[in-house]
């Protein structure tokens, strides 16, 4: 599903070039749940942004669902965002002026889903996430865990094939974090959504099937969780 070949990402300063990602290669198959780990500034989020087509690599090739993402037009990228990719953020990034229901509905509007169908899909998801009573509340009226639930609901409402989560539990306390991880695992196992998460948390990383460690923009290790557990 995802194939990164020799990806470079760098910033040119006056006298030197700083590499964020260096000769990075990666293959992720459909249905995988991958955790990316590494210290701050290692390039995790940049990698996620490149995979999510929010940022572009300075060099290298990126194929998403066999399409050369590094050559895609902005219009085509928007198509992919609408149909195949969902995003979950550490800071939730809900739109403050929208209610819970409206936040969840937003991707469907841009996907061109008709109003009636949208309402039904939102209602269905609210029911599934036990948030029906909160549908008319604004983000500021919700707890962090509830906000992240809304963020996940918004990310999956358009039935994406890939879910990119940038430290989804980073702003939550551990119990809320576990709940969110369980939910992501469930989405991966039951609905077959490919999930790539960036995390600092070893425990939460193990909710995935594979852990990739990055340091200084380079891949240090790429092992299945089962193998890692065996090593421990």
């Amino acid at each position: 599903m995802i194939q990164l070949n020799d990806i470079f990402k760098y910033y040119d300063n006056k006298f030197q070039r700083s590499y964020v990602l260096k000769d990075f290669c990666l293959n992720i198959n459909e249905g995988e749940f991958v955790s990316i780990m590494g210290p701050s500034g290692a390039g995790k989020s940049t990698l996620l942004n490149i995979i999510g087509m929010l940022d572009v690599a300075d060099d290298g090739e990126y194929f998403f669902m066999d399409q050369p993402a590094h050559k895609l037009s902005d219009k085509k990228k928007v198509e992919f965002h609408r149909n195949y990719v969902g995003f979950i953020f550490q800071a939730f990034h809900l739109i403050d002026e929208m209610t819970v229901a409206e936040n969840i509905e937003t991707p469907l509007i841009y996907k061109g889903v008709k109003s009636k169908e949208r309402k039904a899909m939102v209602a269905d998801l609210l029911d599934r996430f036990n948030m029906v009573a909160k549908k008319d509340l604004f983000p500021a009226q919700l707890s962090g865990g509830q906000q992240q639930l809304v963020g996940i609901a918004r990310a999956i409402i358009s039935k994406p094939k890939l879910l990119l989560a940038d430290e989804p539990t980073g702003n939550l306390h551990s119990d809320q974090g576990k709940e969110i991880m369980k939910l992501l695992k469930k989405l991966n196992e039951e609905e077959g959504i490919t999930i790539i998460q960036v995390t600092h948390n070893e425990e939460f990383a193990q909710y995935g099937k594979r852990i990739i460690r990055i340091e200084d923009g380079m891949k240090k290790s790429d092992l299945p969780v089962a193998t890692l557990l065996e090593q421990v």
Partner: protein
Amino acid sequence: MYLLKIAFRNLFQKQQHSITRIISLAAGLAFGILMLSEVFYYYSFDSFYPEASRVYVVQSNARLSDDNAEMDVWDRTSGAIAPGMKDEVPGVEVATRLNSIGNLIFYTADQKSYKGRCVLADEYVYDVIPRNMLVGNAKEAMLKPSNCIISSKIAASMGDDAVGKVIEFRKYPGVQLTVAGVFEALPENSNYKYDVLISMSSIAQFFDWDGSTNWLGNDRYYSCVKLDAGVNPKDLAPAIRKMQEKHQDIIKLEQDHGGELLKYTLIPIQKVYVSRIQGMVIILSTIALAVLFVSLMNYVLLTFSSLINRAKSSAVYKTCGATANDLKKIIFTESFVFFVLALSAALVILMAVKPLVENLVAHSLEATLNQYVLWPIVGVLIIFVLLSSYFPGRFFANIPVSAAFRNYKQKKNKWKLGLLSFQFIGASFILTLLVVVTLQYHKMINADHGYRSQGVYYCSTNGIDGSKLNMIMNELRKLPEVEKVGMGEEVPVYQQSGNNIYSQDGKKDLFNIADFYSVDENYLSILDIDVTNGRDFSTSGINNNDVFISKKCAELLKIHNHWEDGVIGKEIKVSEHQRSTIKGVFDDFIIGSIVEPDKRPSVFFYQSEEGFIRQKEKYPSMEFKLLVQAKTGMEANIRNKIKQVVDMALPNKDAVVRSLEDEQFNGYQAQLSFRNGMLAGNVVVFLITIIGLIGYTSTETTRRSKELAIRRISGASISDLIVNFILELQYLVLPSLLIGLGLAWFILTKWMESFAQKMPLQWWIFLLCSIGILLMVAIIAMIKYSRIASRNPVESLRYE
């Protein structure tokens, strides 16, 4: 609806500066719309006439003196020109001419009095410039002598049965007209206004001499022609010239006067009004657009600042599948909502200041509610909305997603400085304009006009029984407050009608003069006009019809007649007058106002007080003025006392006593309105600029809070930081100031072009205005920056 809902909710979000944005936008829109609608209103004049694009006004282009290279242009002709063009110029479908006899008081049989602009018109008037007839037939009415038609406004004040009533004019006792019809009153945007149309065949009742068929001279007729469809007025020039050759003997006249002397041109009726106030139109448009532009830039600046706080939501929308166009739509809807709210607030402001505004613009605001004003305004507003949403929309759509999810801050502030600089340009431009306009206005009203106006009052003799004049003069002289009483046909505050001085052999005109006609022995001393050469009127040896001439007139006579031994005692012939002997020379004074002074030489003819009284007894409709000079410090209530005396000779006790000083002051009403407009514009632009400056400093302090903290830690004092920031701003302000001052200098030079006395555009005025702006910027920046600079740097870094 979805976008509208979100836009409305956004209004109440923190850090959106919604109230500030709406207030500054509303202030700019209120002033900008008002000024622009005024400009469009000027352009709407006479457009209400059906097929107005085919109607033209005939202009006389004449060289008034042989020395004069340029031709003077005015939109009046001799009486025969309009019918002549109809008969002899192919392409002219129909023509008419109107002859104003003034703003007159008239009475109905029941002694009720009315006032209206009265105009003589021929039967073709409504074929060219038609009005809807509510009662009667205009053509039939205009054919019959002693007939008139009146406006619906006058008719309404007369009651339901106005038609058939007989009216009699105060100025023309015994002249009676029958109301034969009622026309729909002219709107305010009429260039040539009238309330009563009198049949041209009644002319003999108003004038001793009928000039309605005169080919040359007596050019007081407003001539209008309607051309055949598709005719270019310029193509009619040869035929018009042919008509002149046939009826005016123009070839011989030109030979005598050495070149082109008189020609007629056609100006579209819709452009007549605006052609007179071209300078004012340029200035108003510039100011209106400047204010709108400044408020637009300010709105964009504040919107950008608020959008920075929403950078993440731009990225979120994108991750939800929104395209750049979707984001632009969001911002467009928000801008539209802001604009609608600001426009509503602007309309509320305009309604609140309506009486003040109407006083300023000298017409009702409702008069601007016509298609020629509204559509262009709508067009300007649409452009405004598009611009106010385009730039922020583009900015919002282009925020890079990956950067937005981090702590997005702008790296550069050049664009903000650019937007702010437009506001500084606007502020310095309009402040300088205000200062110079105010100084010029005060210079004009305080300027020595060359005659006394303070403590001088006058009253028309219209309607006064001549046999009672002597009694009135005596009664006025008895008033303890009165210094002197005199008589004269004209006063210097108004433009005077012209007459020509002929050459000694009487064969050619030498030059045109402002003719003040007759004045008595007290007139010159009341107005404190000194006779510098020759004798005063009050001395003996002065006879009726002796003439006193201005210095300029004397110089011209010396040149033309080769009078090397002076002018005193010489005889001259002035049109409309018998040969007169020059008895004295006085210094030229300002005729009319300094804004548009009548620069011609002037003359006074002497007529004794007894002579005036005799004339009035003989010709009851003769009008002249009674002048009263008050004793110093005794002016209180004198107007009322003069009125009481004059009313003794008026059956309707309706004397109007005017102060010469007030009338002189009224001559500068347009400049006062302009000054007040400038003042309002200045307040608006300053408000917007201050808001913009506060917005800028707020975002800058946030953007650079880390830098400020680090500077503090590095040892900079609070004052060091403030001075540093203020200096940075002043580097931006200085070039903006120079541009603004340059623009102001250009516009002011244009504005003052025609003034007789000009406020010199001295460097210190510009310097003071610059210092004012610099101080304003420094004070606002100091207040804003001192708060952030004095913050604990650790706190700032933690905040960062």
